[in-house]
C-alpha cells in the first residue's frame, strides 16, 4: 500500500460528494457508530489502515456528519467526539516535530492510537459477523419439542433454581415503577455508602462469625463517613434487636454478637 493510493484519492475530490449522497442515503442507518463509519471510509478509499491519510478521512467523515445534519438526522455525541479526535490528529500532523528523535519513535505518530483502536474494533466486528453466520439454535437448528410423556407427568418436583441477577434487579425496578413515589424512597443513592448497605454487610458477616469487633468493620476504609455510617447501622441493628453490643472496658473495643441463633425454631 502506498502514498500513491491516497494522492489518487485526493484527486477524486470533486465527484466525492456526489458519491456521498448516493452511497450514504442507502447505508445511512447501517453505521454502527464512528468506528464503523471510519472503517467503511478506509475500505471505500482502499487505504492502508496502517497508513491512513488523515486529511482524506477527516474530510469525508465531516462530510458525512454534515449530510446527517442536512437530512435532519440527530448526530449522536460519539460521532462528534470522533470528529474532534480526527481534527486533533490532523492538527498534530501539521506541527513540526521539536525533537528529531521523536520522528523515529513510532508512538509519536499521532495516528497510532486511532489505528490501534480501529484494528481492535475491526476484529470484534468481524467476530460478530462470524457469530451471526453460525447455525443458531431456533433459527437454523432445532431441538426436540416434546418431552417424554411419562416424564412430563412426573416433572412436578423442583430442581435447581434458574434465575439471573438481571431478572432479580429488573423485577425490583419494575415493582418500584409501579408503586407511588411517596410510599417509599430509595436508600441507596449512587456510590456513597448507605446505611442499608452497611446493615447488609454486617448481617452477612454475622452469618459467618459469632462475634465481630467494631474496628474490624471500619479497618479497610477508615474514613469519617464510613465510621459514622457503620455506627448508625449498628444503632439501627440494636434497635431492631438483631444484635447485642458489648464493651469489655471503658474506651475498650466494642464487640457485637447476633441477638438470635441462626436456626430459629419459628422456621
Amino acid at each position: 500500500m502506498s502514498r500513491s493510493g491516497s494522492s489518487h484519492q485526493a484527486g477524486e475530490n470533486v465527484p466525492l460528494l456526489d458519491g456521498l449522497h448516493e452511497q450514504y442515503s442507502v447505508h445511512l442507518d447501517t453505521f454502527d457508530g464512528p468506528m464503523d463509519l471510519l472503517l467503511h471510509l478506509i475500505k471505500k478509499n482502499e487505504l492502508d489502515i496502517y497508513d491512513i491519510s488523515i486529511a482524506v478521512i477527516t474530510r469525508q467523515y465531516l462530510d458525512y456528519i454534515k449530510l446527517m445534519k442536512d437530512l435532519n438526522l440527530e448526530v449522536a455525541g460519539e460521532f462528534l467526539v470522533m470528529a474532534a479526535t480526527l481534527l486533533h490528529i490532523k492538527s498534530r500532523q501539521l506541527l513540526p516535530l521539536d525533537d528529531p528523535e521523536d520522528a523515529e519513535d513510532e508512538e509519536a505518530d499521532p495516528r497510532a492510537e486511532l489505528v490501534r483502536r480501529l484494528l481492535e474494533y475491526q476484529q470484534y466486528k468481524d467476530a460478530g459477523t462470524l457469530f451471526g453466520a453460525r447455525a443458531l439454535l431456533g433459527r437454523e437448528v432445532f431441538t426436540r419439542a416434546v418431552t417424554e410423556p411419562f416424564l412430563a407427568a412426573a416433572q412436578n418436583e423442583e430442581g435447581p433454581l434458574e434465575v439471573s441477577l438481571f431478572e432479580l434487579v429488573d423485577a425490583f425496578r419494575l415493582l418500584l415503577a409501579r408503586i407511588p413515589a411517596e410510599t417509599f424512597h430509595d436508600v441507596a443513592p449512587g456510590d456513597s455508602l448507605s446505611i442499608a448497605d452497611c446493615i447488609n454487610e454486617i448481617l452477612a458477616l454475622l452469618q459467618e462469625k459469632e462475634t465481630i469487633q467494631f474496628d474490624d468493620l471500619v479497618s479497610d476504609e477508615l474514613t469519617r463517613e464510613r465510621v459514622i455510617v457503620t455506627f448508625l447501622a449498628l444503632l439501627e441493628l440494636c434497635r431492631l434487636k438483631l444484635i447485642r453490643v458489648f464493651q469489655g472496658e471503658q474506651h475498650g473495643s466494642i464487640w457485637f454478637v447476633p441477638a438470635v441463633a441462626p436456626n430459629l425454631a419459628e422456621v
Partner: protein
Amino acid sequence: MLSELSAIIESLVFTAESALSTDRICDLLTEYSREEIRSALAELEEYHQLRNGGFELAAVAGGWQFRTRPVFQPFVTRQIKAKSSKFSQSSLETLAIIAYRQPITRAEIEHLRGVDCGGVLKSLLEKRLVRILGKKDIPGRPLIYGTTKEFLEIFGLKDLKSLPTLKEIQALDEAPQYERQDELPLGQELLIPVESDLPFE
C-alpha cells in the same frame, strides 16, 4: 445409511410438537409423492427398529413420534429431578424486595407488593433463599427477613454489596460517560479468558 427423504422426515418428526401423521407429512413435503413418503417412512421405521438405540420411532395416536425404548425408562426417570425450576414473577419480586430492603417484615413486603406474600415467603424460606433474622421490637414483634448465603451462591455474588443497584440497571437506558474512556488500558493482549475465569462450571 438413510435416504435423504427419510432423513428429512426424521427431522420433521423430531421437531414436531406432537405425533406427526402421514397425512401431515405429505402436506409439509409437497415436492414428494405420497408413495415416496410412505416408503421412506417404512425405511425409517425399520432403520430405527434395527439400530437398537436409546429411542425408537413409535406409531402412536395416528402419527409418528420418537420415544425412548421402554427398557431404558429406569435410567431416564433418574434425571427427572434435574429439571430446573423457574422463578415465578411473584417469587422474584418478593425476593428482590427482601434482598434490597432487608431487614424487612412481612407486612412491609406486602405493603410494597400490595398482595399477600405468606405462600411466597414460605417457599423462599424452604428454598433457603431467605431466612428469619429475628423479631422486630414493635407491637406484635413481627419476624424480620433477610437473604441467605445460598441466595448469594445462586446469584453468584461475593457479598450483598455486589448486588447491582437500581441506578446501575437504570443507567443502561442512559447515555455513557465519555470522560471515562481515556483512562482505559488499550492494546492490552487479546486473550480468551482462561478456564478458571469462565462464568459457568
